[in-house]
């Protein structure tokens, strides 16, 4: 819970300081903006930039800088000279007329300018995105003007199957650098370096380019061997006919225009974007080039270039492996564009299957989402499988992130954004929708999710896609708005969902009709409704830019995520299975929050550590980041959030420990390896991501959990499917056993099962010892309220007598448990046989060892053997010492004098024994303290949402009021601040939680005091615990502790039946009056150590060795 508390503080801070948000978490880093602009893969970040002027040399002409004045004028008039910025990244040289800048001194606005209005050119605008591996030669041009000018010869056309391109075909880009000499030189140096490393990837380039249709197409005329070459795969359309009437689509004419353009401006990797490029896209791509241009404009080409074999490798690597995604994919294969002939054939289905499957493996978080089948089926008509695979990557991860995730938060968010844009741009329609109670998103959601592919006739949907890949997701919004605008009047007449939908359905079915059928003007009459739609979308809604969308997304994001988390929680809790019904709604909500909270924290921590390592590695490496700041990734803070569908759902043992640490004081380590340090917490969300000290302990800012055998047993028991992790359902089922029932008998049985390893209904000596040790482990902090409370770790010196007495009662109860258990145990004849063969001493040692430590730590055996007179207590102390468990205590003096041990039949390893459940039950019920431990005490050591006194009946009735959950009302003092998710419940809620935490602790203290008082009352009424007086002078005792311990422990193990009667009293007696020793130390030692030596030796019968 400290953990939670601190993360609330962090989150509260985050909310309070909006600058913090925008500076470090919300604004994308400059590198990522750079990547966005040029649609480059993750691996790229800008290292150099400089103002420059690009001149394209015309075909056949050499460079134009030296050319005649006429030449230059002519070119200028044709617009083939562009001024803009030139950038260099690891593997790319990019030029854009857009004007954005990514140097560290650039304002966010100037780094982000490409997200503003782009006038149809897309973010990268005019210019190029040239892989350095495609640069063949760079010459520095002699120039009159004393300026730096570079002539760049690209490999354009080189892979077209001929060894040498004619000079005629060489593509030359002339670039004049506009900057100081120094700047220019620095740029050239970096370029040189980049070119050298670019050489290494020319193979990739050749491979990728050879699959481009443009390469084949342009080589067509000039190459003789060409006819023998297979044309590259341009999708299922080549085999099954492309949709639409090619003649009506004027496919041939488009192809000619493109051919001309590509010849002029370079193709595929060497393509230069000029205004005609964007116009050609706007009028619709020709069938055979569609896939390739999609690749170029979306940037999936660069992803493919980076790892051309990823697709085949992925398929090979996972071949034959089953997955949920694959099942879901199989279901939909026959249901994807079923009217298109390819998808009635094994060829088409096979491609679809492979692409979807491969993607589900590369992004297991997304896996497969319905709608992806339709999108992929559509793009496969124009692309090869590989191309489609990479395009799908870019689509899911960059263009429409979160659309297909398991929570579909991107989809939901964009619906909110869309609604708010409608409200803004068409207020009358919006009002009408509100009044008619029509939910816009029920109509628009499928538009976005399937990129209009399912909503309009295919040929038009592809035209939308053409622009979408170039200009990005804002296109989806522009189209949507235009659709509503055009149909505005009819929609105002529609008064319910049905009418609304049918207006739009009709509209979509008539997109090919004339927009102005009645017009006198034949030109106007020729305009189709679809053309009209495009015009409205991109002219009238030109103001809807990518930035508009980002702003709106930022605005609605929290609400949407919270909604999803709320919904997910509600659903998930409802479906936790029958066991969950035993827990209250509050507790379930609490467990849910805590479960995902811990997993989220751990995921975050892991990420931060990874980032930190990365950063260190980078810092040591090249100085790529010379002028460019490297910032952490934008969404780091959110990775793992439930609503983003990226949360872990499996809790491993360590996470389980951390989980327990937040709710069960006994699970905290007495001896944290790395003390919980307040200072560390602040750093996560500190102003400077770079300055944060990643001094992350494995437990983050929370306290360190112990690692006791009992915890492992619990984990094992709850992991009912033996998967080595717990799901929320496992966890809840587990808690429903320990907390969900007030039936003491079943509680006892459950505990018994925990220790009945082989499930034979018998627990042997070893088990009994382990059990009793677990009792002590569980009880060791039970009364230690000050420790619990003062998280900073300053123990309080004084303690009330009441508290002590309860502790001691428990101790004595455990002692008598052991005695009785051994007394009533049955001899195990079967075991006898095997046991006899073993070395007696070894056995004892072993069992003692386990008794003492609780983890089977082999090291201790050595110690034990050395100290000959092996008494359990002694073992414990040495073992604990060896382990370094006892930290707050002075080391146990090891010069313990050997005691003579009386014979103890029960402990004679030669006589194996066991207890059965009935015996166990009897032994427990014979002791009031243990009885109450099993009644409510144990359950109450887990602090969930409900007040510690369990009320088994309260459970399900209140499930419907779940809406209130997570908001601690002042009335429920005992409510825990366990709600980490959703992290942004509002500042109010967090502060409430913090306050409540304080109140809860106070309440807890009070409750325990009362408990203790009650206990005391009961005890004194029974006259069972005579002396509470000697709670002073513990300090002296501390030192003698270890020596005290032994006798006490021995008493515990006594077989002397006569002592049984007095055992109880003795236990109480012995336990009474010990103070400090109890607190915060290892479980067995101190309380026992309190015994007065003389007293002990008189009573204790040792066993012989």
């Amino acid at each position: 819970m400290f953990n939670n508390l601190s993360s609330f503080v962090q989150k509260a801070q985050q909310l309070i300081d909006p600058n913090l948000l925008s500076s470090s978490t919300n604004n994308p880093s400059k590198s990522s903006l750079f990547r966005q602009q040029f649609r480059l893969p993750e691996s790229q970040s800008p290292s150099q930039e400089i103002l420059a002027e690009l001149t394209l040399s015309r075909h056949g002409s050499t460079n134009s800088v030296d050319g005649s004045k006429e030449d230059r004028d002519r070119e200028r008039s044709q617009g083939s000279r562009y001024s803009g910025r030139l950038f260099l990244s690891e593997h790319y040289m990019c030029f854009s007329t857009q004007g954005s800048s990514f140097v560290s001194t650039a304002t966010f606005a100037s780094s982000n300018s490409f997200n503003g209005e782009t006038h149809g050119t897309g973010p990268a605008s005019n210019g190029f995105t040239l892989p350095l591996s495609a640069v063949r030669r760079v010459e520095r041009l002699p120039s009159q003007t004393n300026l730096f000018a570079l002539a760049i010869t690209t490999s354009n056309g080189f892979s077209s199957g001929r060894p040498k391109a004619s000079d005629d075909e060489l593509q030359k880009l002339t670039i004049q650098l506009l900057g100081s000499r120094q700047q220019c030189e620095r740029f050239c140096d970096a370029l040189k370096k980049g070119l050298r490393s670019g050489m290494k990837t020319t193979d990739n380039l050749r491979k990728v380019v050879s699959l481009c249709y443009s390469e084949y197409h342009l080589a067509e005329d000039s190459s003789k061997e060409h006819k023998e070459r297979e044309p590259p795969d341009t999708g299922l359309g080549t085999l099954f006919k492309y949709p639409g009437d090619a003649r009506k689509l004027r496919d041939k004419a488009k192809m000619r225009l493109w051919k001309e353009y590509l010849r002029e401006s370079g193709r595929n990797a060497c393509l230069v974007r000029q205004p005609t490029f964007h116009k050609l896209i706007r009028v619709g791509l020709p069938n055979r080039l569609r896939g390739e241009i999609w690749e170029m404009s979306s940037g999936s080409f660069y992803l493919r270039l980076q790892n051309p074999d990823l697709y085949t490798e992925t398929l090979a690597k996972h071949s034959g492996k089953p997955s949920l995604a694959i099942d879901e994919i199989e279901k939909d294969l026959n249901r994807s564009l079923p009217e298109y002939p390819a998808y009635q054939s094994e060829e088409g289905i096979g491609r679809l299957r492979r692409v979807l499957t491969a993607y589900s493996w590369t992004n297991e978080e997304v896996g497969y989402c319905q709608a992806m089948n339709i999108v992929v089926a559509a793009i496969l008509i124009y692309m090869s499988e590989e191309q489609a695979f990479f395009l799908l990557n870019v689509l899911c991860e960059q263009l429409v992130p979160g659309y297909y995730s398991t929570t579909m938060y991107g989809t939901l968010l964009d619906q909110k954004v869309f609604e708010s844009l409608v409200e803004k741009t068409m207020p009358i329609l919006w009002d009408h929708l509100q009044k008619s109670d029509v939910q816009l998103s029920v109509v628009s959601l499928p538009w976005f999710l399937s990129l209009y592919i399912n909503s309009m006739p295919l040929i038009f949907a592809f035209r939308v896609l053409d622009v979408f890949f170039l200009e990005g997701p804002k296109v989806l919004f522009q189209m949507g708005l235009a659709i509503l605008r055009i149909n505005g009047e009819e929609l105002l007449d529609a008064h319910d969902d049905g009418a609304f939908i049918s207006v739009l359905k009709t509209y979509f079915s008539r997109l090919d009709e004339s927009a102005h059928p009645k017009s006198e003007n034949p030109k106007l009459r020729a305009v189709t409704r679809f053309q009209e739609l495009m015009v409205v979308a991109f002219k009238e809604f030109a103001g809807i830019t990518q930035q508009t969308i980002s702003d709106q997304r930022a605005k609605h994001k929290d609400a949407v995520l919270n909604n999803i988390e709320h919904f997910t929680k509600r659903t998930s809790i409802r479906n936790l299975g029958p066991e969950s019904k035993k827990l209250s709604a509050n507790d379930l909500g609490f467990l849910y929050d805590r479960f995902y909270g811990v997993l989220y924290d751990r995921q975050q921590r892991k990420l931060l550590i990874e980032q930190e390592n990365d950063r260190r590695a980078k810092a040591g490496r090249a100085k790529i980041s010379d002028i460019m700041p490297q910032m952490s990734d934008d969404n780091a803070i959110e990775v793992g959030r439930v609503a983003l569908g990226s949360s872990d759902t499996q809790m491993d043992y360590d996470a389980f420990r951390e989980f327990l640490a937040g709710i069960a004081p006994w699970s905290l380590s007495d001896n944290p390896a790395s003390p919980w340090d307040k200072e560390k917490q602040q750093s996560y969300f500190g102003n400077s991501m770079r300055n944060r000290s990643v001094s992350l302990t494995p437990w983050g800012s929370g306290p360190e959990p112990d690692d006791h055998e009992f915890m492992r047993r619990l984990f094992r028991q709850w992991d009912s499917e033996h998967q080595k992790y717990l799901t929320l359902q496992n966890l809840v089922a587990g808690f429903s056993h320990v907390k969900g029932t007030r039936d003491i008998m079943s509680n006892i049985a459950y505990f018994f099962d925990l220790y009945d390893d082989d499930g034979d209904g018998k627990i042997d000596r070893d088990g009994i010892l382990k059990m009793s040790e677990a009792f002590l482990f569980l009880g060791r902090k039970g009364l230690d309220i000050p420790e619990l409370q003062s998280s900073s770790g300053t123990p309080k010196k004084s303690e009330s007598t009441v508290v002590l007495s309860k502790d001691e009662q428990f101790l004595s109860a455990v002692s008598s448990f052991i005695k009785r258990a051994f007394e009533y145990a049955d001899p195990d004849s079967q075991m006898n046989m095997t046991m006899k063969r073993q070395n007696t001493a070894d056995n004892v040692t072993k069992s003692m060892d386990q008794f003492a430590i609780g983890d089977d730590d082999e090291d201790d055996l050595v110690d034990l053997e050395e100290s000959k007179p092996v008494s359990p207590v002694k073992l414990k102390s040495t073992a604990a010492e060896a382990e370094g468990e006892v930290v707050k205590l002075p080391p146990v003096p090891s010069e313990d004098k050997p005691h003579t041990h009386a014979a103890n039949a029960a402990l004679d390893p030669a006589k194996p024994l066991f207890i059965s459940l009935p015996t166990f039950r009897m032994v427990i019920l014979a002791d009031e303290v243990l009885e109450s431990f099993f009644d409510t005490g144990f359950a109450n050591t887990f602090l969930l949402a409900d007040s510690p006194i369990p009320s088994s009946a309260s459970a399900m009735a209140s499930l419907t009021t779940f809406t209130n959950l997570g908001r601690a009302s002042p009335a429920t003092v005992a409510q825990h601040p366990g709600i980490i998710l959703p992290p942004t419940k509002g500042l109010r809620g967090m502060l409430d939680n913090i306050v409540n935490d304080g109140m809860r602790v106070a309440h807890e203290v009070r409750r325990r005091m009362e408990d203790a008082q009650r206990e005391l009352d009961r005890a004194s009424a029974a006259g069972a615990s005579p002396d509470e007086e000697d709670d002073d002078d513990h300090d002296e005792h501390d030192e003698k502790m270890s020596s005290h311990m032994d006798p006490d422990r021995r008493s515990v193990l006594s077989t002397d039946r006569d002592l049984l009667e007095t055992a109880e009293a003795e236990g109480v007696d012995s336990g009474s009056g010990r103070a400090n020793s109890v607190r915060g130390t290892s479980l067995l030692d101190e309380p026992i150590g309190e015994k007065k030596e003389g007293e002990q030796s008189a009573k204790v019968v040792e066993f012989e060795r």
Partner: protein
Amino acid sequence: MADASQGSAPKPSSSVKLVLLGEAAVGKSSLVMRFVNNDFQENKEPTIGAAFLTQKCPLPTRTIKFEIWDTAGQERFASLAPMYYRNASAALVVYDITKPSSLTKAQHWVAELQRQASPGIVIALVGNKLDLATPSTSPEGADEAAEDENDDDEADARKVPTKTAKAYADEDGLLFFETSAKTGENVAEVFTAIANAIPETQLKGTRGSAAARAQEESRVNLSAGRDTMGAKEGCAC
């Protein structure tokens, strides 16, 4: 939404908003298609988000107009569902009798509807793809047959015994049917039963001038409905 309705219907009618929920590919869209168009398509595209259709059912005394929201079945679409079942007065929760997991999912949906949807929503549990079960067995006899899987050549693909689902439906007070969208068996019956099960108070008339009339209509006793509606033709327009 139960009270909202179309503005263009010439006849007085009561609108009933009905939502279909259930695991992916259990045949929700196919059921709707059978009901609305009396048609069946072997490969139906998965529903993206939701589809909206309407179908009128003329009753002797009035017309019920179903406004049908057919939702997407994949698990991750679940968070969209509230958008669609909002104000619904009836729900068809569909499972596939050849897929036990789909019944579990159906139960989850029922639980969600009972807690989150309009109070008093009429829920029908529908086991679809009945045509895949051994045809000879009657619904009652099918239980035993299903228990011992499909060792016969008859290849009974049924995995969910009628008894199991029926018992669950009874316990939760749901209407229960087994249907086949493919053959049309029992499809119209489901909708008829729902039409009859909707409490009169839930039935509201159309907007505007028709509203008042429809309100009148909806008060007419509907007890005769079931029989009249039995025939498929009664509903398919």
